[in-house]
């Protein structure tokens, strides 16, 4: 008995398996992309959100709403003061959208940005920094 051979392409697709990305992955990637900008930061430390302090080296908090392959992000971010807020948030929106799309294949349609704190750059935490 000889079964008809399945087309090579579809057998390959079946045997490859599936890649599933959780929402959290998109959130982390978007947060990391945002924190790579020198003028952006998040908050770190604290317990249950109490006592958290603003930190330029922390990842901003990102929440993702996924609808199929389309995502709507909301980013809570801290920014350097003074920077032109409209320009830098627009730049960040473009960059997050490009990078998330390139890294995950998810199309980012909307990015809502909330500026939660503004701080000057020369404010140090008192700790030593790696140069």
């Amino acid at each position: 008995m000889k079964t008809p051979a399945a087309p090579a392409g579809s057998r390959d697709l079946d045997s490859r398996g599936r890649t599933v990305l959780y929402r959290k992955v998109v959130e982390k990637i978007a947060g990391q992309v945002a924190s790579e900008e020198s003028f952006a930061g998040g908050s770190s430390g604290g317990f249950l959100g109490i006592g958290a302090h603003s930190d330029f080296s922390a990842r901003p908090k990102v929440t993702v709403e996924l609808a199929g392959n389309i995502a709507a992000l909301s980013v809570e971010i801290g920014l350097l003061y003074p920077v032109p807020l409209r320009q830098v948030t627009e730049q960040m929106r473009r960059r997050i959208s490009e990078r998330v799309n390139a890294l995950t294949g998810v199309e980012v349609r909307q990015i809502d940005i909330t500026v939660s704190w503004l701080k000057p750059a020369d404010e140090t935490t008192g700790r030593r920094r790696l140069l």
Partner: protein
Amino acid sequence: MRQHAGALNRTWLVILGILALAGGVLILLAASGTLHAMSSATVAAESPVVPGDLHTVLEQASVTALVLMAGVLMGALGLLWILAQIPRRNPADRYRLHQDPASGTTLCDASVLGAAVENQINTLPGVVGSSALLRGTAMEPDLTMKVTVNNRADIQDVLHSINTRVIPDLSKALETPLRRTGIQLEVSGRNAVAGTTVETTGTVIY
């Protein structure tokens, strides 16, 4: 820092003044008899102003209800006027900084910007404390500041720093010139507590 109901008061006082003036002139004209001389339909001087019987008019239930409603209305208006006298801060809620909401919104609380301005003012020499309040919209912001300095402060220097650094930085952040700026200065005997550490890049000798 707080806003008062100045314009409202002036408007209503002018209206009430004109009404009272008109009433006074009318009474004077009636008392002197000029009104009767001008028009014979009106009352003569030294005769009752209301010629008819007031009791029969006022006994009707509809007139009582009308007078009652007018009284309640005037009382309510007076109460609203008194409540409008309470000084209010009227801060801006949040500034919308996005151009195209379809691609996402950008929101910044006016208090976040106010805190950034306060932080910057507090680093000026001689400043003990400050509070900043933003009003208006993102395109036409108003900034009001209360700056407390101690007796070591050079006030001209503080004002110069605010005008050359603090205000331009805020208009740079909002990308628009400030429509109005107010500075209230206070002098206090307290010491400035900010600035307990200083950054140094000194040479280390082993």
